[in-house]
């Protein structure tokens, strides 16, 4: 895939990681005591709590990794030419050179085809002579 499409995919990946992170954390967060007026919330089993404590770390690590990957892709952009006019000028130059080489090719091709015809003609004559000289047994 070309580099710009990869960059676009990476942007979409970062977006989906972000909303998955927030969605998962909001959905799975254990209840928390907001004020001393409310009773203690029911405790959640220790295993789930341990798993849940891992989630933010893993997800934020994935997010940061995706952002670093994006930076790496940006660094790999081959933006060598400075500006549209420089590119258009180069295209014009290349077209002119392509035309001249094309004409050269055409000339060579025509000369080669002419020589091919001559050789074929000679071969025909030689074959005819051969046939005429060969005496039937």
């Amino acid at each position, binding site marked *: 895939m*070309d580099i*710009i499409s990869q*960059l*676009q995919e990476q*942007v979409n990946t*970062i*977006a989906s990681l*972000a909303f998955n992170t*927030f969605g998962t954390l*909001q959905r799975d967060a254990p209840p928390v005591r907001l004020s001393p007026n409310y009773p203690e919330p029911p405790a959640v089993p220790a295993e789930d709590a341990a798993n849940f404590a891992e989630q933010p770390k893993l997800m934020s690590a994935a*997010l*940061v990794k995706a*952002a670093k990957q*994006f*930076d790496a892709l*940006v*660094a790999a*952009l*081959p*933006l060598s*030419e*400075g*500006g*549209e006019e420089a*590119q*258009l000028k*180069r*295209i014009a130059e*290349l*077209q002119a*050179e*392509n035309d001249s*080489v*094309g004409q*050269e*090719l055409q000339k*060579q*091709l025509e*000369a*080669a085809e002419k*020589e091919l015809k001559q*050789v074929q003609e000679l071969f025909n004559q030689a074959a005819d002579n051969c046939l005429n000289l060969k005496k039937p047994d």
Partner: protein
Amino acid sequence: MATATYPPPPPYYRLYKNYLEDPKSAPEPPPPVEGTYVCFGANYTTDDVLPSLEEQGVRQLYPKGPNVDYKKELRSLNRELQLHILELADVLVQRPSQYARRVEEISLIFKNLHHLLNSLRPHQARATIIHILELQIQRRKQAVEDIKRRREEAQRLLKESLGTLDGQ
């Protein structure tokens, strides 16, 4: 314009009855379409240009101008994005009812990112043309060399065979 569900094919084939004998008796193909045209009820335009962000009603975060430094702007937009995501996480913890503005800003950054990347496409197209032209010139030069070599080879063989025949 046919509006039936399954319209028959257009009846222009009758005009080409004598095409084999007289190629000029049939009408010319229609010229290429210019401007906007309607296809299956939808409007399309032949001039494909990326509409600027202002036309879509989106604020532009990176500086406008003739030559934008794409790499720098992409990197800075990436940093802005990360900062805004952190801000959103903070807001959700402290003041959960104010999430909307932060989400708006994050989507604004994404729109800017995609617009910047799309504006790189014409540059990529021109670079592809340059690459293809260079390849074609290289192939043509190679072909010219090959033909020259073969012609010289043929000439040499002919002279050689002439010499052999003469010597006989």
